[in-house]
């Protein structure tokens, strides 16, 4: 028996040389069914058109939310943190007794 890689190559080469069927015409039934399906889905198409816009709007909303959180964090007065720290220390003291 010949080397198998050679056999496989020759087999694939011969198979690639097999004549191909002509594409012919698009079957009417397929055309009709596809077009009917396409006609029935205009609402879906409109949503698909809106999808990139909605994605951008969502990204902008997320950015604004992050900015608002950052600004609110920076504007929180230091005193309120200290009040919480004192309260926390009192509680810890009470618990340790």
């Amino acid at each position, binding site marked *: *028996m*010949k080397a*198998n*890689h*050679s*056999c*496989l190559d*020759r*087999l*694939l*080469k*011969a*198979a*690639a*040389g*097999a*004549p*191909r*069927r002509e*594409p*012919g*015409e*698009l*079957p009417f*039934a*397929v*055309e009709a*069914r*596809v*077009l009917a*399906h*396409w*006609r029935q*889905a*205009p609402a*879906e*198409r409109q949503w*698909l*058109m809106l*999808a990139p816009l909605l994605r951008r709007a969502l990204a902008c909303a997320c950015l604004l939310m992050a900015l608002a959180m950052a600004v609110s964090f920076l504007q929180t007065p230091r005193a309120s943190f200290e009040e919480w720290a004192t309260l926390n220390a009192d509680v810890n003291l009470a618990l340790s007794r």
Partner: protein
Amino acid sequence: MQPQVDHENWDARACIRMVRQGDEEAARALMHQLYPLVIKLVRAHLPRRTSEEDLVQTVFMKVFSRLEQFSGTVPLEHWVSRIAVNACLTQLQHERVRPELRWADLSEEEEHVAQALAATNADLPASHHVASRELVDKLLARLNPEDRLVITLLYLEGRSVEEVREATGWSRPLVKVRAFRARQKLRKQLQTLLQEHRP
């Protein structure tokens, strides 16, 4: 009635724009323009139990439902090829891989091809090409869908690695690795088959 499509002077962008606006004639023309490409791909990767028409219909439905996502950065044919290849792959994944091919599964013509392969080192004559393709199809039916796809595209359709990458969306190294592994499996199948008949 079949619309007359001028394949050479056809303007894909204008047609797609009109389809997006809901023009039915443009949708029909788009289908007729793309049909030769789609049918070629479907026939090359057709799963055993799926009808050609059903798969063509599935591909066109996917094309129309995703037409809004077509940005025009790649040629329309490449975009449609990828949809068609993925539709075939999905369909192939629903099929169970067949067990090992035995000598008894071969037709008379396929037996002659196998005998010729084992007997000589020469290329097979043109009269054996159709039977060779049938034998290769039987061997491919024993591989998984990805392996079958990569062998068909690279070795039967003569596409380049770059073209396979475009059609499947796989990376270049993945195409090469899959092709290598698929060839190994195919070689093993062929070896087993030829050894079965060795006197």
